[in-house]
């Protein structure tokens, strides 16, 4: 079982994929593979926050994995967070963005290592837009996660933060695209 480890923004995540394997009757889909993502925090047991992230990832990966190639099976992805940066505890507990890029990129690497057929590549990055330096400290800016596929199209956009303008968002999107696609 391949287990790629990936670090980003101080978060280290190890991933493992099982699949295609036998699926439980209630989860079975007749013409495509069911996808199960398990996100496990470094400390404690999973909370609604992890369930929320799992939901995002499942929806994202369903578009990337060629699920129709594996009908009536299960692709089971486990992402174990190994370490978080010291600043993690200062973030609001509801914030799921900082960890998201590390999880997405690990998921992608894991699927590659597990020889699961994919329709395209996947890369994610976190962009933070501060209002001004002082406000940034008080976390009044906004932060965004963008994931792009191989054609450079955004496949996942998640934003958090206080109010932000559409121009800021576009700026952030361009910055992310530049970062990811070079």
């Amino acid at each position, binding site marked *: *079982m391949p*287990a790629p480890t990936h670090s*980003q*923004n*101080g978060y280290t995540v*190890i991933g*493992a994929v*099982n699949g295609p*394997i*036998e699926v*439980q009757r209630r989860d079975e889909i007749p013409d495509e593979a069911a996808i*199960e993502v*398990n996100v*496990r925090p*470094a*400390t*404690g*047991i*999973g909370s609604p926050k992890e369930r929320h992230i799992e939901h995002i990832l499942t929806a994202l990966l369903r578009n990337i994995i060629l699920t129709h190639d594996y009908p009536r099976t299960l692709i*089971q992805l*486990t992402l*174990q967070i*190994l*370490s978080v*940066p*010291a*600043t*993690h505890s*200062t*973030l609001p507990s509801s914030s799921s963005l*900082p960890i998201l890029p590390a999880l997405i990129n690990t998921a992608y690497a894991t699927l590659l290592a597990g020889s699961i057929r994919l329709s395209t590549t996947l890369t994610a*990055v*976190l*962009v*933070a837009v*501060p209002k001004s*330096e002082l406000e*940034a*400290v*008080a*976390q009044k*800016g906004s*932060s965004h996660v963008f994931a792009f596929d191989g054609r450079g199209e955004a496949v996942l956009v998640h934003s958090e933060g206080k109010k932000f303008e559409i121009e800021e968002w576009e700026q952030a999107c361009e910055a992310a695209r530049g970062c990811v696609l070079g």
Partner: protein
Amino acid sequence: MPREAELSLNEREFILQALRENVRLDGRAFDDIRELQLSFGDEYGVADVRLGKTSHNPFPDRKFDGIFTISTEFSPMASPAFEVGRPTEAETLLSRLLEKAIRRSSALDTEGLCIIAGLKCFALRADVHVLDHDGGLVDAACIALVAALRHFRRPDVRVEGENVTVYSVREREPVPLSLLHHPLCVTFSYFNGGEVVLVDANLVEEQVREAEVVVTMNRHGEVCQVAKYGGLPIDALALLNCTNVALAKVQMLDKVIQQRLEEDAKRRDKGGLMAELNGDTLHKDDDRLDRTTDWLAWVSEWIEKAIGLTVGVVAQRYAVRCMGVSEGGTGRGKARARALEEGEGETVRAM
């Protein structure tokens, strides 16, 4: 949930026949333990154990209430047969064995976690993450847990009446947990009607064994726990012999853990305490900034650190002057460093 793939009859017979001819599939002697790889994370209290392909990663962290808890939750990462949210029998047994080996044998002095009796205490939580499963789960989990507990440092506290000051890692050197002894598990597996005894069986060997005995001991020759859950009946004298073998193995493992801990301590101590106080912290953080993209979070931390450090440096100079020692003197002993630290801690709190 798919079931664990069972061994075929041929595989089963092959392993047993090899054992009859005194051969283990991975070439080890019968009483050999797989090579132990033990590494520690950047933070205190993270240990990564690899025993063959089995690996663990406990991460003690502190919360605000309760006592010492050990959490073992299997994820499908180790084996697809482990389902999330539904504990398997193996998981229950592992958690029971760890509980008996470490908690019931009072390896951790939980009184040392108490701050004010009945009012405040530290709560220690150890999460055992099984990353891969190739047999010897109990042994590896126990090594990981003990290593993590020995590696872990809790923040220092000071009690004045009912007021408790918890010093952050930057203010005061965190203190290690008080461990009364270091229990370690050794699992014996019996084959061929009890004629063949293996130490540290791997997954395939575990699947064909007829009985298992888990012995937990510490290096002082105390048995903390013995568990033989049924299986093939074994002669009483042979069982007693297990404890002798276990003692030798435990002493060997304990030495390896000790050695790794010392290596890690050396690695951490590189700059030394004084170097850190003299402003190295800033440089170290600068490096980290470059790597991080989530700068919202780090800017706040950086500013907080910078303020803390400035106050610290001022306090340090003040303390040094009061003590009548010239700044930057040669006596960079630990006692002095501690005195400086204390001064700093108080000033920060006074603000």
